[in-house]
């Protein structure tokens, strides 16, 4: 009995310490964002702010300047939304269809084809910056949100295909066979049978893609124009803008704003993430 209590104690202690480690940066960002410049200088990094001071938040959101532009993060945020939503949806749908074909309608060479595509998951993306911009220029999509959406779809396709394919492989083939006997065709089977079964993997893929696309900086900085810059670029501009007194509070507020959507997604849908993984999204 005593040993049991002791081991429980150890478990909770370790989990608690780890939680502290993981929370520390967020905590620092949060408290700092509520401090004013004076408190930042005088207090230390863990000390609590004297009150809830939302000034730096409003500043970061709507009035902070980068260059001659003083609209805060708001326009960038909107750009990111306009970029991320279609890109996430398209790349996910695309991966779902590909995964469906590659697992349930195998043909000769389909595995090999998949292997080649899979290599794309692992490609370092810096490699593609220049040629991609040439292609985008050729397509007339350079410096536009549409261009960014295209790039993210292409870059994400291999990964989403992998997710769906591995998940669908675990679905019994009999199910497709039964539907074929019942008279359903390729698309009907997909829409009526397969899609409704995909909730866990859909969640994983959506979360994964949203995180990647929302957080992307490299493509954002390289392929965006003056008014299509995503929030990461905005944040970078703000945080890297050098002025004599670095307004850490504004930077932190801005950072939290930039990370808010993805964090929210994890907090709200995190349980589906683990569930989806359990359901076979990542297999060996």
């Amino acid at each position, binding site marked *: 009995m005593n040993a049991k209590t002791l081991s429980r104690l150890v*478990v*909770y202690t*370790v*989990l608690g310490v780890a*939680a502290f480690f*993981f*929370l520390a*940066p*967020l905590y*620092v960002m949060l408290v700092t964002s509520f401090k004013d410049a004076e408190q930042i200088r005088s207090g230390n*990094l863990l000390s609590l702010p004297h009150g809830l001071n939302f000034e730096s938040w409003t500043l970061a959101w709507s009035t902070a300047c980068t260059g001659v532009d003083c609209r805060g993060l708001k326009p960038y945020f909107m750009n990111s939304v306009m970029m991320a939503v279609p890109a996430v949806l398209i790349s996910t749908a695309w991966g779902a*269809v590909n995964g469906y*074909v590659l*697992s349930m309608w195998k043909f000769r060479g389909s595995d*090999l084809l*998949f*292997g*080649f*595509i*899979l*290599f*794309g*998951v*692992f*490609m*370092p*993306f*810096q*490699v*593609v*910056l*220049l*040629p991609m911009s040439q292609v985008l220029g050729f397509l007339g999509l350079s410096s536009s949100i549409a261009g960014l959406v295209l790039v993210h779809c*292409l870059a994400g396709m291999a990964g989403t295909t992998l997710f769906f394919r591995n998940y669908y*492989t*675990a679905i019994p*083939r009999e199910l497709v066979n039964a539907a074929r006997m019942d008279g359903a065709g*390729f698309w009907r089977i997909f829409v009526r049978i397969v899609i409704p079964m995909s909730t866990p993997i859909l969640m994983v893929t959506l979360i994964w893609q949203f*995180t990647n696309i929302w*957080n*992307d*900086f490299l493509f954002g900085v390289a392929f965006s124009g003056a008014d299509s810059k995503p929030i*990461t670029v905005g944040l970078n501009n703000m945080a890297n803008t050098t002025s004599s007194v670095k307004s*850490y509070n504004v*930077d*932190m507020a801005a*950072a939290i704003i930039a*990370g808010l959507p*993805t*964090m929210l*997604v*994890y907090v709200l849908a*995190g349980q589906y*993430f*683990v569930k989806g*993984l*359990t359901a076979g*999204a*990542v297999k*060996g």
Partner: protein
Amino acid sequence: MKSFENVLPKLVIAPGFVLGFAFIYGLMIWNGVLSVTNSRMLPNYDEFVGLEQYVQLWDMDRWYVALRNLGLFSVLYVGGSMLIGMVLAIFLDQKIRFEGVIRTIYLYPMALSFIVTGTAWKWILNPSLGLEKLMHDIGWASFSFDWLVQSDTAIYCVVIAGIWQSAGFAMALFLAGLRGIDDSIIKAAQIDGASLPRIYWRIILPVLRPVVFSTILVLSHLSIKAFDLVMALTAGGPGYASDVPATFMFTMSFTRGQIGLGAASATMMLAMVAAIVVPYLYSELRSKPHER
């Protein structure tokens, strides 16, 4: 009728795969071509220089530093994330109260890009502002933690931050693996007289091997691609002490105007990635899915 049912799936994936192939392999080849030209500020296909860029690459101290850092970083980062992730997953699987909350806490760093948290980390790790100062403030005057600003330790800071970001992900993968294990196996082992640590060591870990394997794979390819992390935290500094191949390539191609050299380093990176991925792909494609 039958032929249509056979062709339709191929038709459906064809456009995507053509695009994907162009994107992946077209650009890879393009990079290979660049690496044998003398491209500087912009791509330049006229001046063929053979393997000169590679010769130059392997003659650069900075490249070796980058490789050494990559080695150090990958081993520590992958190992650290896995170890912490595994321990947390095992502990979290012991019917913990508030499991959902704790899990979210571990997982959220994944949601944030380093562009976002880099500032906080830089601050925490900075000796005159962060942890060291904090310790001094609360009276531990001899406390010293200046890894970020020392040439030979800066890379460890990158490791710490990297682990912070990825351990939760590893935890999620392992937890998923643990949850997938049939309860009765553990019961059977209890009946067979194995102690809890033994059960984990002999029964559960071996079962999790595929998960361990894919986690290693995901993490190690992340470590090769680690870019944001280094950029946000040290930008390769002090000097180029914490440079890694990804930042090396970026610097050469985009700030130095040595696109040819950058392309050569990118080729090397691709080769490294291939060394990890190809065996994985091989096993992935060999295992017959319906036999599982």
